[in-house]
């Protein structure tokens, strides 16, 4: 697989343990005290979206559901709130993955923005429909920042798959 479909560079196959590790690290990153800072992105949503686009056979709605439950319990939110948003995120990301991967990275980020924003809006709607208070506009800044982080996140998460460029003097190819 290539970094994008238009790229000529071939990547190594992904290691399954790295996918799981990155998802768990993103979950732990969401538990950091920095999560209270305004405009902090939802790391788990970002990584989940990334892997559902790139490796839709491995990461999908099952992971989204389980990790969503973990987030609900850790946040003290209503059970199923994060799960609902993450499942929709994983589904749309998977079904759009063929299209998104054709674009260069900056345009990929633009395509991911509505997905991340929608997952945040869904959570807000679910909670406000059941009597929660309005969390403030800062709550919707997180996805914008996460969009800006799409390019560094792509490089970071694909790093183990880049193989060294091996030039042989004696062979033209």
């Amino acid at each position, binding site marked *: 697989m290539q970094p994008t479909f238009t790229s000529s560079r071939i990547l190594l196959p992904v290691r399954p343990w790295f996918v799981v590790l990155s998802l*768990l690290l993103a*979950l*732990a*990153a*969401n*538990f*950091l*005290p920095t*999560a*209270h800072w305004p405009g902090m992105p939802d790391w788990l949503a970002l990584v989940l979206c990334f892997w559902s686009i790139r490796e839709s056979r491995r990461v*999908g*709605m*099952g992971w*989204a*559901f389980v990790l*969503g*439950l*973990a987030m609900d*319990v*850790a*946040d*003290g*939110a*209503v*059970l*199923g*709130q994060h*799960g*609902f948003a993450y*499942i*929709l995120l994983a*589904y749309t990301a*998977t*079904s759009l993955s063929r299209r998104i991967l054709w674009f260069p990275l900056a345009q990929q980020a633009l395509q991911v923005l509505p997905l991340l924003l929608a997952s945040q809006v869904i959570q*807000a709607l*679910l*909670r*406000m429909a*059941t*009597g*929660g*208070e*309005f*969390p*403030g506009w800062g*709550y919707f800044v997180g996805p914008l920042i996460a969009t800006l982080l799409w390019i560094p996140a792509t490089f970071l998460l694909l790093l183990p798959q880049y193989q060294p460029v091996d030039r042989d003097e004696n062979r033209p190819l």
Partner: protein
Amino acid sequence: MAGIDHAPPPFFKRGPAPLALLTFYLAISLALFVVDLRVRSLDLFRQSIALVVDPVQRVAQTPGSLVDHAVAYLEGLQAMREENSQLKRQQLDTAPNLLRLEHLVSENTRLRQLLAVKEREKVDGQVASILYTARDPFSRRIVVDKGQQSGLLAGQPAIDEAGVVGQVTRVFPFSAEVTLITDKDQAVPVQLVRTGQRSVVFGLGNGQLELRYIPANADVQEGDLLVTSGLDGIYLPGFPVARVLSIQRDNAYAFARILCAPLAGVENFGEVMVLNPRPARPAPPPEPTPVAGKAKKRGR
């Protein structure tokens, strides 16, 4: 050897269709959501997930607390000394009252016995330190470091040195969740100290409280102190809750709009005291049966 298998070999093994999976998972999530909100019968499920998530969460909290410790260490002896002397002064300030308290309590019990009034309930509880604020931006809760292990129960009130902080709403094996009085769903029955009027104070969700169901012409002034009335059977009477900030009287409404500020350091970090639950109260007297003649409508 087994015979030829008639089913085609699973070259391309695929699960259910994505749309079917999506419907399935969404249905489960929605069911969980509704059951958790309306029936609240998923506490055991939540506790078992918490057993797995809690260690990760504590590990994630360590860098922050390490920084806090480092800052506290570097702040040094001087600040500590100042604080210490300040605390000593404070203790001296309160000493006269505290020393007389025991005397007053015994006197009060004696007088109450003379008047044949029920004795006041004793205050008892355990100190818990705040671990972190719950990340949920739709509510105001904190998580404290004591749980089922220390015998906490949902419903116990939590106070700090200045007043009521909130109420324990969920209990996990090693931690508990305290909903602050400023949460939008939280209500505390209170009493105005100056006039003795009873009412209920509600959280607004923005760090303030609102005193509701007070008539527009009632005697309420800015700066009035609200204490728990104890009528609910949960909070002991007499704990400070809030101070009246502003009063808007609008003739269009029957009730005044009264905003209050909480007295306790509700949004601060530190330690809280979780009070033991009050003993069960006697059952309320039965409702009087309506008399048939009185139910008639008034004549025109």
